């Protein structure tokens, strides 16, 4: 077993001479290979360069590994040159100087240095240095930098991101961070995630997107610009794409599908669950900038002659699948709206009351083909969180929620929320 420093930065050992059993110099440390591990990736070997020869030494053969000495349990003349296999993940080649996602700060940063530490007897990769200190250390100027800072009575800050709070974006390294940080990535706000996705290159984007669970992927996708959404969906396998589309609210899914070529969109709809597919199909038939194109088909509707108590029970069952629960529409047998209740009305009513006795009438509705500006005006005029949309027979078809129209109401300059690539 190697004896190693309990903690060090990789920049401190880069290009250090590596000795054999007898103390003879074999070559210089070129790289360090890592393998997947829980909770941290562990060092699996060293790559040593001597002139044109490259030696790959497994970690078990390493004797000493610290800032001053690196030595291995072998004799120089017994070593056979061997290049590391292409699939190895190497610290200097694949990780240093590359971009990573700082999950805590929700932004892309560059790796200036990497910290290794003893974790339960193995030397593991525990953190990335993303600060000025890391750059200075690489240049061999850390001490000088500290002195310079102290002249101004300041401290050179340590900026380290723990392994659990970073997500690699390089496709190769992303695999390494997948298992451990998956949950953490999912905890980022979808808008932050979308911003990062829009900043990385297309190869990295695929890797990053691939690391998300279907639900998070759907939420992040929703935050991106339609043309970018279509691009991303286009790059995925059909199965995964249809899974993600199912997770999205039908109106969002329809927006994404609307930007894809017709054949591709049809293909994806076929792969979706029947119910979701029908909703999306229906929405796709409406013009994009009309009430029909903006609306979602998921809303709460109840018959007039049930009690408040039953309605609340029903609400609990349906709420998880519905975007907005602040309005409950009361509809007749033909799905025509006859009244509306706010969530507040419902909660404040006495449990045995019938809905038809406490509902507000008449219901203000807008037609399917209403222009988006009319929808916005309608919502603003009546101070609504959602507007019910009806067809020519006055049958309730969906609702347009305020977040779907708020974009149109913003002045153009502040509308850059949806990230372009």
């Amino acid at each position, binding site marked *: 077993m190697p004896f190693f420093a309990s903690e060090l930065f990789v920049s401190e050992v880069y290009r250090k001479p590596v000795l054999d059993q007898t103390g003879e110099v074999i070559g210089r440390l070129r790289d360090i290979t890592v393998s997947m591990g829980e909770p941290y990736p562990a060092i699996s070997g060293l790559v040593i360069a001597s002139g044109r020869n490259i030696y790959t030494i497994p970690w078990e053969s390493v004797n000493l590994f610290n800032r001053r000495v690196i030595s291995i349990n072998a004799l120089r003349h017994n070593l056979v040159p061997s290049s590391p296999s292409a699939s190895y993940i190497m610290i200097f080649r694949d990780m240093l100087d590359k971009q990573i996602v700082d999950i805590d700060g929700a932004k892309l940063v560059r790796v200036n240095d990497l910290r290794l530490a003893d974790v339960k007897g193995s030397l593991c990769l525990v953190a990335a240095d993303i600060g000025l200190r890391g750059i200075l250390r690489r240049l061999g100027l850390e001490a000088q930098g500290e002195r310079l800072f102290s002249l101004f009575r300041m401290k050179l800050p340590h900026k380290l991101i723990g392994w659990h709070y970073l997500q690699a974006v390089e496709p190769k390294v992303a695999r390494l961070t997948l298992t451990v940080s998956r949950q953490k990535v999912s905890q980022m706000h979808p808008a932050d995630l979308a911003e990062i996705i829009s900043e990385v*290159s297309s190869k990295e984007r695929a890797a990053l997107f691939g690391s998300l669970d279907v639900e998070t992927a759907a939420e992040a996708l929703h935050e991106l610009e339609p043309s970018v959404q279509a691009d991303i969906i286009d790059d995925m396998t059909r199965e995964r794409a249809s899974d993600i589309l199912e997770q999205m609210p039908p109106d969002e899914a329809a927006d994404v599908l609307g930007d894809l070529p017709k054949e591709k969109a049809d293909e994806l709809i076929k792969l979706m669950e029947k119910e979701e597919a029908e909703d999306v199909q229906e929405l796709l038939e409406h013009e994009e900038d009309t009430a029909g194109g903006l609306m979602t088909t998921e809303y709460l509707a109840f018959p007039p002659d049930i009690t408040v108590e039953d309605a609340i029970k029903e609400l609990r069952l349906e709420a998880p699948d519905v975007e907005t629960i602040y309005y409950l529409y009361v509809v007749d047998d033909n799905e025509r709206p006859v009244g509306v209740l706010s969530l507040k009305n419902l909660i404040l009513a006495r449990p045995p009351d019938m809905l038809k006795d406490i509902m507000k009438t008449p219901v203000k509705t807008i037609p399917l083909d209403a222009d988006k500006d009319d929808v916005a005006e309608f919502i603003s005029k009546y101070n609504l969180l959602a507007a019910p949309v009806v067809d020519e027979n006055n049958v309730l078809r969906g609702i347009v929620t305020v977040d779907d129209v708020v974009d149109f109401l913003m002045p153009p300059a502040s509308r850059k929320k949806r990230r372009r690539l």
Partner: protein
Amino acid sequence: MAVLERIRSFIERRRFLTFLAVMGPGLIAGNAGNDAGGIATYSIVGAREGYGLLWALILNTVALAVVQEMSARMGVVTGKGFGDLVRERFGVRVTLLVMSLFIFANLTVTIAEFAGIAAALELFGVHRYISMPVVAIIVWFVVVKGNFKQVERFLIAISMVYLTYVVSGFLANPPWLEVARQIVMPRIRMDGGYILLFITMVGTTITPYMQFYLQSAIVDKGVRVEEYKYTRMDVYAGSFMTGFIAFFIILATGTTLHPAGIEVHTAEEAAQALRPLAGEFASQLFAIGLLNASFLAALVLPLATAYGLAEAFGWESGINRTFREAPQFLGIYTLFIVIGAGVITIPGAPLIKIMFLSQTVNGVLLPAVLVIMLRLVNDKELMGEYVNSRRMNIITWITVVVIILLAVAMLATSFLDG
């Protein structure tokens, strides 16, 4: 048939729309190369040599197109700026070295652009104590408050003002046959002055900030690989326009100043010298052109620097960002404008020395950038199927070696002069 015809025209229209959507970075980067220094150089070339160096413009334009195309290709394929790629492939030391030179070169050129703005506005009677703060605020405001689309459109609009030089050229009423004859059958001389002018011309047309800006702008814009052919058109159009404008500047001074034997040393001198020979209007157009060119470059240079540094050191970047989101990016941009405009308002600032220094640093930086660029663009892992083809490599290596030789020659001569 009529139906087929209509479908075809529709498809073509769609293509044209895609081109319009992708267009921008190449056009802007190219035109930004015709900055205050560029216009001065072309004015001097025309005044001293008449049409004698027009032929070189063609080579110049081809070289520019070759280099810019590689930058654009890297931007589109990797989705990363030049600063990103240098850092990721060459590590901290090389990055720091390249970036130090880059900052220094760009800062001095930025000062030169503000000097150009001040000089041009002084021709219209605006004192620099008024023009500098006003222009600095405008330049700052455009990028900090605008979003990418608005800034790009603004820059494209400015690029179109360059066409005033075409009018200037026509107003000079050049003998077109003689112009054509000298392009086809140039009388190349081997004396020092002629060669030096030739070298300066190439040095002023191809500058590192153009490549940095082009690649970063393409990334910020988010051009996709499928749209690359349109980007290439944009780059070629931009390079062509750069040469085209230079052609008319040389024509304007070559037709009027050269026969009269008037020597000029700066662009504003050229504008003044044009007045008695080509009329008030031609002179004013020339001055407007200088103002516009300096203004465009005064915006692009700080932007290119901010992009490059933010990429290299992993800071958030992009025109769409606010100060809170990207403090370093917009901070660098602001600092450059403040210094650029500030230095001009210092009485007795050694502007000539600054220009000389900027030429020297750019001369060192350009070969480094080109060699790094060739290594990156031939990196299979990075570029995949978009690496240079063999033929492309032969063309680019010849171009790059020639540019490097000229840059070194320019360095040597500027030291001999100094």
